């Protein structure tokens, strides 16, 4: 669906993306994690055609994002962290902007809006930030775009809205659609994503499916100090010590994305070595 090869991007002389390779397939939800300034938003903007690679290539089927062809823009939708909504009523927004998207679904929009509990008769500018964001996400999901890119979509959402968000996203995925969610708040992505991609200093540090992570790693708690030296990552918890270890015994455990992220950031080579075996 989207193929990224040797992508370099820099703001003036400051390199942000440095030879990045990535391949996104339909039918999956990708979680994009990384520190502030790691290049997550820059990567999403390059994929959406809002920034142009300084070196390397991005292909979206037959399209090159940087050309911003209408046919491409109909198939990709970016929900940016900071977004603008036009100062018009929701009904007018749908009436005048949805015709740009040939696969638009009003039924989907109404359903999502209802799920998010957004009043339909208000001006977008009169909604709160969280409501605007939910309306924007509803619009994004209803465009019928095959690729949805979301930059920090849960920022500004309250606890209830975050669970509504997870439900809506999980319900919107089909075999033709690919969703990439960039976030700092890894807890918001738990039980939602199929694949996790961690970006650091403009490079992909880690890129594995949740299935593979479950098979190769074990997330647990130990009270035995002798278990700690062999762990890929450990940190003291209220009770005992939480650990990430290589899953040599084939035990089942639920991946803890926060622990995984910390493990990758601390010991990327050791962790990737586990997956190569």
């Amino acid at each position, binding site marked *: 669906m989207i193929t990224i090869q040797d992508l370099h991007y820099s703001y003036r002389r400051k390199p942000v993306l440095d030879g990045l390779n990535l391949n996104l397939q339909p039918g999956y939800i990708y979680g994009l994690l990384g520190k502030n300034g790691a290049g997550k938003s820059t990567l999403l903007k390059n994929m959406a055609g809002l920034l142009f690679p300084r070196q390397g290539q991005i292909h979206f089927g037959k399209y090159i994002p940087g*050309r911003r062809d*209408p046919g491409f823009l109909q198939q990709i939708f970016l929900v940016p962290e900071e977004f*603008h909504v036009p100062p018009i009523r929701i009904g007018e927004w749908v009436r*005048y902007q949805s015709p740009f998207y040939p696969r638009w679904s009003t039924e989907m929009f109404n359903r999502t809006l209802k799920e998010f509990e957004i009043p339909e008769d208000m001006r977008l500018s009169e909604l709160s930030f969280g409501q605007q964001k939910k309306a924007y996400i509803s619009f994004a999901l209803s465009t019928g775009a095959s690729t949805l890119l979301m930059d920090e979509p849960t920022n500004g959402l309250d606890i209830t809205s975050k669970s509504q968000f997870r439900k809506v996203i999980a319900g919107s995925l089909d075999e033709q659609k690919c969703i990439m969610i960039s976030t700092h708040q890894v807890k918001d992505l738990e039980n939602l994503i199929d694949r996790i991609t961690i970006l650091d200093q403009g490079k992909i540090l880690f890129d594995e499916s949740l299935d593979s992570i479950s098979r190769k790693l074990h997330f647990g708690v130990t009270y035995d100090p002798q278990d700690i030296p062999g762990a890929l990552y450990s940190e003291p918890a209220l009770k005992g010590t939480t650990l990430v270890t290589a899953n040599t015994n084939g035990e089942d455990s639920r991946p803890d994305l926060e622990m995984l992220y910390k493990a990758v950031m601390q010991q990327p080579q050791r962790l990737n070595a586990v997956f190569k075996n």
Partner: protein
Amino acid sequence: MNNHFNLNRWWMLVTLHWVENRRRYVLSLLAIAGAMIAIIGFIFANDRHRPMSQNYQFGLYYTGLCLIGCFYGSLIFAELGRKREATLYLSLPASQLEKLLCGLFYGVIGFFVAYSLLFYLLDLPATKIADHLIIKYYWKPRNTPRPEPVGIYNILTSSDEYRVKDTIAALVIYQVLQSTYILGSIYFSRYSFVKTTLAMLVLFLLGFLFLTNLPRALPANFDLDNLFRWRRHSGNPPEHEWVLFPAWLENLLTGIITYSLPLLFWFVSLVRLKEKEVQG
């Protein structure tokens, strides 16, 4: 799918632009009307003998057209300088050509029509009032010939040949200026009106320096009447001999320089629109 230009998609853009901006446009037109009424009132107060003469109408129309038109031109693509709006605008599934033509539709055609209608909406009653006041209060003594009505200044046709030339020149200058400000609104992310004005001043200065220094680059016995007409001095006492371009070439080059600048600036605007990134 046509990824370059589709009339239906362009019309959707035009409609969407109107829906998003209509309130702002109506308020702006009201503000312009208010400013015009204030200026007309000032003219009436200061010229009691021939208020709203065609000179006043000409001045009011073109000063307003140039100032407001250029300011509006500098706002047409101003959203590209604001990250949030630029993201939405550039992500909308329409080609860059359609987006540019939508901007030009409002900035060049829409503004010209709306401004001209507004001008005449106020100019018609103002000239009637002027004629009435001239006859009622300033036609003294009554045995002198009755003053001619001030008449309504027509921006497109004029019986006054001198003013026809002024009109064409004013329209051309306006188009060149406005297209420069439209380009500036894409080129400069912030303060585009000020930056475009400064850039133009620098260009004018460079052009002026070029033209004033050009005669020095000519051979000693040549001087310059204009770019296309040179004089050669020879003999004693000196005689002048014209060195001219062929008339057709002079007309062609003059026409290109005069009328092609807006087209050139619109084309560069399209190129810049295609190159626009949303950084930060």
